[in-house]
């Protein structure tokens, strides 16, 4: 006779384990590829549309059956793209340089010196970063108009002379800078100015590079403020030039896409050439 002994079934909770590395890498890459395609699609569509003939613009094909440069030639004839690009470069470079300079100086003052109401001033400056453009748009416009600077590149640069974001990011970076190094520089005889430029700034390269990219791209893409101020194509930036293809009669999509491609080209080339440095500088500065 055999006796069946019922063994109690013990339920072991399944151990959650991470997927095998062989599976993990392709999965991660798959997700990244999909996200990259989503990001690249509008750029691709812009370039492809700029190469389509006028009658094939809205056919929806992923790849154009006919390729033409007619839109580029029309766009170059319709607006002074060359001078507009030069204007955009001037404005973007000037705004980037001024914002970096004022940001460094202001941050250094906030970090190094104790002065009356310093914390209040810092807080007020931070508030300006949170204030939308629409709120300050009219006062700024009136100010620029009274100064007689409408339709000038100076007016495009002046209101962006300083950036609260740059001041705050530089302040944070400088606060984490080792105090002993600054004290060593003082002991070595360096004054405040020399300490800033010879000791602090060379060690903020990551943050400076990241901010340069952020400020340059956002100024390059700035549309609303130039739209308010610009009156003539000679004093306009490229974003206003693009807008000129949107008329009351309708939008000229082909030339608009061609102008947009030309406007994006300097930034794209800049990004492709300096891709590694751009990523490294963002990683170094802690901006993600």
């Amino acid at each position, binding site marked *: 006779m055999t006796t069946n002994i019922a063994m109690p079934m013990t339920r072991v909770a399944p151990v959650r384990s991470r997927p095998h590395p062989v599976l993990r890498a392709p999965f991660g890459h798959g997700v990244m590829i999909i996200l990259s395609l989503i990001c690249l699609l509008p750029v691709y569509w812009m370039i492809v549309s700029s190469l389509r003939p006028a009658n094939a613009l809205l056919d929806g094909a992923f790849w154009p059956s006919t390729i033409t440069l007619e839109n580029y030639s029309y766009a170059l004839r319709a607006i002074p793209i060359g001078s507009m690009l030069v204007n955009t470069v001037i404005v973007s470079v000037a705004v980037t340089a001024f914002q970096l300079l004022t940001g460094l100086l202001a941050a250094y003052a906030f970090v190094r010196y104790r002065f009356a109401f310093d914390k209040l001033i810092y807080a007020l400056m931070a508030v300006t970063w949170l204030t939308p453009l629409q709120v300050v748009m009219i006062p700024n416009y009136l100010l620029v108009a009274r100064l007689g600077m409408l339709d000038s590149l100076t007016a495009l640069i002046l209101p962006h002379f300083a950036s609260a974001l740059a001041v705050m990011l530089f302040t944070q970076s400088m606060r984490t800078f080792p105090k*002993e190094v600054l004290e060593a520089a*003082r*002991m*070595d*005889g360096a004054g405040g100015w020399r300490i800033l430029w010879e000791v602090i700034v060379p060690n903020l390269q990551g943050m400076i590079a990241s901010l340069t990219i952020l400020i340059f791209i956002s100024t390059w893409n700035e549309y609303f403020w130039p739209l308010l101020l610009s009156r003539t194509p000679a004093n306009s930036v490229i974003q206003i030039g693009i807008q000129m293809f949107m008329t009351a009669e309708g939008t000229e999509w082909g030339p608009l896409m061609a102008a947009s491609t030309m406007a994006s080209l300097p930034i794209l080339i800049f990004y492709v050439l300096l891709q590694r440095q751009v990523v490294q500088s963002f990683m170094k500065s802690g901006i993600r």
Partner: protein
Amino acid sequence: MAHLNLSGLKKSYDGKQVVHGIDMEILEGEFIVIVGPSGCGKSTLLRMIAGLEDISGGELLIDGQCMNDVEPSQRGCAMVFQNYALYPHMTVRQNIGYPLKVARIPKADIQRRVEAVAATLALTDYLDRRPAQLSGGQRQRVAMGRAIVREPGVFLFDEPLSNLDAKLRVDMRIEIRRLHRRLKATSIFVTHDQVEAMTLADRLIVMNGGRIAQIGTPAEVYARPASTFVASFMGAPAMNLFEAATLNERCVKLKNCEDWVTEAGFRLPPAGHGVTVGIRPEDVAISLNGKGLAARIELIEELGGSRVAYCSRGALACAAMLPRDIDFSEDQTVFLNFPASAIHLFDQEGARFQEDKSNNDGNSAQADKSFYTGVKDALAVMTGTE
């Protein structure tokens, strides 16, 4: 070489005083070590001398000139920081040469002086490296090079060895001492490490709670600590301190050990006053049999060159260095004897009693003989009827 005079130097933060009127004189070429526990104000005092902290009160004179409001770089001091404080973006050559560059010394001179200093500190092969490519010891040498190259009157060291491993610390300690012997510059070295303090100093300044607890040569401070604080801070293992009371003007008895007395050899207050008896572990005579205070070994600590036994008898705990020629083990009963000549006595506030020299000089043999003994023996020693 510079000569420093600190007169009533005070430091307050938001009305709270942290350094309470430091008075001292530092002679030319002297190597002074300021030692004390964390937060005792030793680094603050050093930074006040350097000019990195404002002086709230008193006067700092360097070579007779008041330096209270003089910029750090104009005081003729060079400082070596705890975390090296090297410029991360500069090479070793640029780091060492930076103070000369700021002082607008001609490039050829900078190069010559930097190379000379690098050779002194064995850094010649690393001149074109950045600090991140150097080891801790090499970084510390670069920091010292940056200080040396200025040829300052005073070297200030703010715990410069505390980030190094034990072996490197010993090597650097010797290196610093050698450098001082060669350069003969006045040096002030701040540390919380008593071994560093004892080995480096010409004179020690022991600080506690923003005040000077004692100034003296390392030997003086160790042999005649001015207070229970100094007694317990200097020396490892720390001095044994026992609560006691005076039996008469020459005799004390331990609080937790009623039947034991010692002839102290100090000028004591009348009977009944509370005192603290101190004895260094290496002065405690420990044996397996014979006379003395019976105690149990709770723990034996092996230090390589020596062994320490932590003994107890009721509430009384005592550390003693063990002789190498006798085998001791934990839980063993041993007998402790305290040579009267090795005993330190402190009052209720912790200040050291003055030794009764007339007594010691006249009866030194007797004092040395008068180990911790029973009441009868002690009385016999005191009355000379032994």
